[in-house]
C-alpha cells in the first residue's frame, strides 16, 4: 500500500511539536533531554520521507550523521547532568537558578 508523503510529514511535525512542548513544560532535566531526542528523531523521519519522495539517497545519509551527532550530544549532555546531580542532588530545573535569567 502506498502511503502519501504528507502523512509522514504531518506525523513528523506532530512529533516535533510534542518534543517542543515537552522541552518547555517538563521540569525534570532527563525528561527535557528526552524531548530533545524526540525532536531530532522527528526530523529524521522527515529526512527519510523526503529522501524517498525525491529518490535521493543523500537524505538517508544525513540521518546517519544526525544519529551520530545525537549520540555525541547525549554523551556530553548526560555528563553535564551527572555533574549537576553530584553538586546539587536535584534534577529539578526550577532549582537550578543561581543566575537570574
Amino acid at each position, binding site marked *: 500500500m502506498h502511503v502519501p508523503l504528507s502523512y509522514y510529514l504531518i506525523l513528523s511535525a506532530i512529533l516535533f511539536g510534542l518534543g517542543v512542548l515537552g522541552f518547555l513544560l517538563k521540569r525534570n532535566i532527563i525528561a527535557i533531554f528526552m524531548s*530533545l531526542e524526540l525532536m*531530532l528523531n522527528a526530523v529524521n523521519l522527515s529526512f527519510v520521507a*523526503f529522501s524517498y519522495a525525491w529518490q*535521493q539517497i543523500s537524505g538517508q545519509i*544525513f540521518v546517519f550523521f544526525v544519529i551520530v551527532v545525537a549520540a555525541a550530544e547525549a554523551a556530553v549532555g548526560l555528563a553535564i547532568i551527572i*555533574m*549537576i546531580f553530584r553538586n546539587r542532588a536535584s534534577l529539578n530545573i526550577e532549582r537550578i537558578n543561581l543566575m537570574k*535569567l
Partner: protein
Amino acid sequence: MSVPVTDLLRILPELVLAVFGTLIVLVEPFLRRTQKSLTGYIALIGALLALLSTLAPAMYPGPAFNGLVLVDGFSIFFHFLLLMITTLTIVASFRYLEREGLPQGEFYALLLFATIGMGLMASGNELVLVFLGLETVSIATYVLVGFRRTEVRSNEAAMKYFLLGSFATAFMLYGIALLFGATGTTFLPDIARQLAEGGGMRTLALMGMGLLFVGLGFKLALVPFQAWVPDVYEGAPTPVTAFLSAGPKAAVLAAFLRIFFTALEPLSGSWVWVIWATAILTMCIGNLGALMQDNIKRMLAYSSIAHAGYILIAFAAHSELGIAAVLFYLVAYALMKLGAFSIVSHVSAGEAHQSIDDYAGLHARHPLLAACLTVFLLSLIGIPLTGGFFGKLYIFTAGIDANLMGLVIVGVVNSALSAAYYLRVVKVMYMSEPQGNLAVVPVPASLVFVLTLTVLGTIGLGVFPSPILQFAQQSVLPLP
C-alpha cells in the same frame, strides 16, 4: 578511490588542528602533574602552524570533496580570523588554568577541535557539512563552559547552554530537512538554482528558511533568542567566555552569510525585513540589558548581544559593501572582546570578583591594565582612533548605501546609549577609591602578550584601517 592532493591542501588548516588536538590527548596522560602546561605550548604551536598552513588553501582556492568544501576569499578571511582568535585564547588561558587547577590537556584539545568545526562552517558549501561543523563547535564548547566541574555556576551555565543549544540545533535541523524536501538537495548553489527557477515547493522552502533562521539566531544570540547568553557568559570560565564571544559567533555568522547570500538569495525578498526587525530588537534589548548589570561579565555579555545587532545592519544592507563591513567589524570586535575578557579573567582572580565595583581604583593597582581596559571599552563604544569606530562607520555607511536610514538611526542612538554603561566602568576605575581587600597580583607574561597584541590591533585598526578593509573587500561573497 583516492583523495586528490589539492582537496587535502584545501582543508590543511583543519588537518593540522586535528593532528595537534589528537596529539595533545595522546601525550597528556604521560605527563607528570607539573608538566601539564606543556600541552598549552603544543596547542599554541598547532594553532600557529594552522594559521601558517592557511596559506595553502589561499594559494589553491576552489571546491574540494565534490563541492562539500568551497575555499574562496571569504573562507580564507574567516580562517585567518578564527585561528587568530584561537591562538589568543590559548595564550590567555595559560595562567588561568594553572591558577584554577583545571585539567589542561582536555581544555586545549577541545579548543582545537572547536576550531576545526569553526573552520568547516566558514568553508562549508553544503548544509550537512555546515551542520556537522556547527555541532563540532557546540559539543566542544558545552564541555568548555562546564569546565569548572565543582563550581555550581559553571554547571548551571553548561546545562543551560547545552539544553538551549540542542533545542536550537533541532530547529536548524528541521529547517535543513524542509529545505531538502523543497529542493531535493543540500548543496547551497543547487538550492539557489532550484529556488531561482521556481522549482521545488516554495512554501516548504520558506518554512525551512524560517526554522533555519531560528536555529542560527539562537547560536548567534539574536533577540528574541538571547536569553541564554548572560548566564552562560557569567558561569563559564572567563577565557572560554572570551572565546565564545568571538570565535563561534564569527563562525556562525560566516555560515549565516553564506547560506542566506548563496542558497536563499532567491528568497531574499522574504528574509531581508526579518533581519531588519531582528537588528532593531537585538540592538535595543542588548543595550538596555547591559545598562542594568552590576556584574562585568554579564554586562559584556549583553554588549555582545548589542554588537550582533550592529552587525545585522550590514547584513540587512544585502550588498557586497555590507559583507565587507561585517568582515571588518568582526576583526575589530574579536580583538576588543578578547582583550576585555582577558583583563576580566586576571582581575576577577578565580571568578570571585566579577562585580563592576571590584574595578574601583584599578588605575591605582594596575595602571596599565586600567588603560588597556579603557582602550577596549572606548573601542566598544566606537570612539575615533579605535577599531570599533571604523567598524561602526563602515556598517552605517553600508546601511545608508542600501537606504536603511531608520536602521542606521537606531544604530547610532544605541551606540550613544551604550556609552553610558561602558563609561561607567571607566569612571569606577579612575574616580572611585579602591575597595581594600583586593591584592595586587602581578600580570603574567602571557597576559602581557595577549594585551599587547589586542591593544595594538585595536588602535592599529583605528589608525590604519585600510589594509584589513582591503582584505575584507577582496574577501566578500560574490552576489548575483
